[in-house]
């Protein structure tokens, strides 16, 4: 897998993970192009499309689009299930995950993704094992801490 993007129906990028070295400019260009392309597609269309020399696999969950770019030899259907498994992991961790969970706990979303996918390949497919790793990490958190983001950040919420 070359990269994974999560974006909202309004085209706001919520998470990005790149597994190939690209400049910031390229990343922005790719993101813009892909978000446009995917958002323009109708609901019943197929989840795969050719884009440049890559294959795009995407799926919409509620208000969020999950979008992966894979190479020619890679398997589309299993990528679709990578997306689903990731959603399941988020769901299990947050308990009925919603877009806001990912916005405000982005670091958790990244940590879960890193436990599941590394360097663009599946690292651990067992839901139990991934969540165990995350929970262990959570135990290491100092008790004095609550959330990472201070209240002043909450103000951003309404802008979206």
């Amino acid at each position, binding site marked *: 897998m070359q990269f994974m993007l999560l974006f909202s129906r309004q085209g706001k990028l919520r998470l990005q993970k790149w597994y190939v070295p690209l400049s910031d400019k390229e990343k922005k260009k790719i993101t813009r192009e892909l978000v446009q392309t995917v958002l323009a597609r109708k609901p019943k269309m197929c989840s795969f499309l050719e884009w440049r*020399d890559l294959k795009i696999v995407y799926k919409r969950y509620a208000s969020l689009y999950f979008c992966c770019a894979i190479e020619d030899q890679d*398997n589309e259907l299993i990528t679709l*299930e990578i997306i689903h498994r990731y959603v399941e992991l988020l769901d299990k961790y947050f308990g009925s995950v919603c877009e*806001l*969970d990912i916005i405000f706990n982005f670091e958790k979303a990244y940590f879960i993704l*890193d436990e599941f996918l590394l360097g663009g390949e599946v690292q*651990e497919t067992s839901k139990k094992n991934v969540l165990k790793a995350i929970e262990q990490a959570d135990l290491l958190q100092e008790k004095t801490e609550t959330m990472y983001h*201070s209240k002043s950040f909450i103000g951003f919420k309404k802008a979206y």
Partner: protein
Amino acid sequence: MIYHGKHPAGKSKEAEIKRINKELANIRSKFKGDKALDGYSKKKYVCKLLFIFLLGHDIDFGHMEAVNLLSSNRYTEKQIGYLFISVLVNSNSELIRLINNAIKNDLASRNPTFMGLALHCIASVGSREMAEAFAGEIPKVLVAGDTMDSVKQSAALCLLRLYRTSPDLVPMGDWTSRVVHLLNDQHLGVVTAATSLITTLAQKNPEEFKTSVSLAVSRLSRIVTSASTDLQDYTYYFVPAPWLSVKLLRLLQCYPPPEDPAVRGRLTECLETILNKAQEPPKSKKVQHSNAKNAVLFEAISLIIHHDSEPNLLVRACNQLGQFLQHRETNLRYLALESMCTLASSEFSHEAVKTHIETVINALKTERDVSVRQRAVDLLYAMCDRSNAPQIVAEMLSYLETADYSIREEIVLKVAILAEKYAVDYTWYVDTILNLIRIAGDYVSEEVWYRVIQIVINRDDVQGYAAKTVFEALQAPACHENLVKVGGYILGEFGNLIAGDPRSSPLIQFNLLHSKFHLCSVPTRALLLSTYIKFVNLFPEVKPTIQDVLRSDSQLRNADVELQQRAVEYLRLSTVASTDILATVLEEMPPFPERESSILAKLKKKKGPSTVTDLEDTKRERSVDVNGGPEPAPASTSTMSTPSPSADLLGLGAAPPAPAGPPPSSGGGGGLLVDVFSDSASVVAPLAPGSEDNFARFVCKNNGVLFENQLLQIGLKSEFRQNLGRMFIFYGNKTSTQFLNFTPTLICSDELQPNLNLQTKPVDPTVEGGAQVQQVVNIECVSDFTEAPVLNIQFRYGGTFQNVSVQLPITLNKFFQPTEMASQDFFQRWKQLSNPQQEVQNIFKAKHPMDTEVTKAKIIGFGSALLEEVDPNPANFVGAGIIHTKTTQIGCLLRLEPNLQAQMYRLTLRTSKEAVSQRLCELLSAQF
């Protein structure tokens, strides 16, 4: 999470930016402040920066603070530091050093959580600096006995990422065999990660990881035969370990079918089980279940296609895909179409694929998703052969009328290629292309209409029909400009073939074309002017009419220089030149040399080589410049590879022996006339007659006579070693008179220049009668190349100027070093080079008697090793060698299959570089 705050954000974008700038200023002041921040605050602000970045704003500070967090002992601080680095890595080398230091400490900490973080960071950033620092270390972590499973998984994928970035920095060693044994690990997560790593490594080092095949097969076998609950948490919606299965099947695609019959049998069993399971009723209605199951199935089919050796499995795969073609899931229909494209190119399943033609055509008509229709077009293209070409081309044409704009050009190219490739009747071809222009004129590129002209010019039998058809098509009140171009060109060449019919008399033809003139763009008008001057030659009766047109102010004083020049020169030509000269200058175009369709080259460029499947014997040569195409090429810039007009061609320039090139083209007219009226002789001569043949003779040998006429003989002796060579050129004066100003010049085209270095010293400008002079050329092959350099010789002989050009036979195969190998190695390497762009194949008629010994000598002369007892069919020849260039070495495999009965050969070249396969195939094909 609470949804209201103390600072409600503004409603507008500006308010957001304002708010963020304020926050950024605040953070910056905290970081710059005199008071040292504690770890918690530092983490808090770094985290805020990350948040702002993820909202889509640029962040240009905070990296240093993030790096500081890495060395914190508190897990959460460290974690946020690493996340910042992973997401916002900066190639600032100063920081990379610090980051690497922190990572090094964490890797050495023996704390699995810290090690995990460090490895995740390396895998996320994956820069070359990191590879330099850790590529040696990580294999040790990976294979150490006491490493925890989760760390092993991270280490494997971390190494994979570094290998992808910097393969040269990951040393192969003892660890590789231990990594292979991870395929047997108890922990399926470890196996999954290890399989990815091994697959990537095995693609480049197949020998090193050969033992993984049998291990992968037995692992796969255990998975596919397990009950759906056996694998516990690794079962996904009742499918046992789908990710691992897919990865194992992918790994097996790095290798040919296993040689060990037991392993092979077991694998076949696995594949059959997977195919059988597809027929079983689903264990769950959830889409996840069917997706996971079918993911494994499609990967198994890919492996079956890759092996391309079990007809039974191939046909079963094809039937399975056939079922999916009508599945209600769009995703499956899409994948089935895609997968069938590859099946269509296997000889075992081509026929089976063809049985689904109606379904595919139906998909083209009814699918609502353009990306699915696109796949249907691809599949129709792939399954097309002589038997169904008329149907497929007709369906594509009718689809084109309503096709999405995004894929029209590609369909046009495909139709044009299929129509040409499978034309039995060329009138059908001409009709098809004219239809293309009518339906989708805007998407018909130059290559397409150049090509129809080439074909019409090369085929006598279709010229009259083509003239008649374009004449009729031009009757339409509004026709596409491309049709005017094709029409203008064809009538200019073959209008005489229909001029007998009073309905298409010369004047009517002219008026028809001229009625379109003013609506056309400048290049088309330029082309039409050339048509008019051709009419002057073809139909003397319309000469005055045409002269009037040329003489009009709108031509002679046209603001466009090209049009004006043509009008002036054509008018002058029609006035001063005698009928004979006119007839010579404006003679019918000579046939175009047969080359690969430039359209195919264009489609390849558009789609990438891998997606253009060639079923038959399309010659794959370099892309073609349509020489003498309707665009004018002034003589001063004309290149020698194309039949270019020059002084000598008209016999108006100096002296014999005139290097006779093909007659000039109408398109070159603009430049041609310069030569009619001037006596300039400094133009490089076109290639001497027979030069091509002589050139071909040197492909497999190094010494001999390259050129000879009444005056001059050129002999060659050359030797090559690795990427270097030396060539002795001997110029012999066959007359008893001196040659004066004798100047041989070596000319490399711009394309050739960077790839081939030639060095030589000038020779004495006087060559005495009967004498021979020698010139030494030192040759260095920098990179692979296609063209040959040209040797141009100019001298004066008894007051006349002589100008000769020959191609110098320095060809890519000269830098071959033969390689001996056993049958097993050969076929293994052969399989590894199985991407479509690595292979080039040519099927051609034997031009010489098919003698085994001669063929062997030629292959050895070509430079590759001749491998005996490698091909199971003793009649075939296989060879192997390495092309040495300064920059790289390219392994080449070749296989020549003679068919005595048909007097044909099939030559297949496989190398890692498409251009090399192409060129070698071209060179060698010309030898038999």
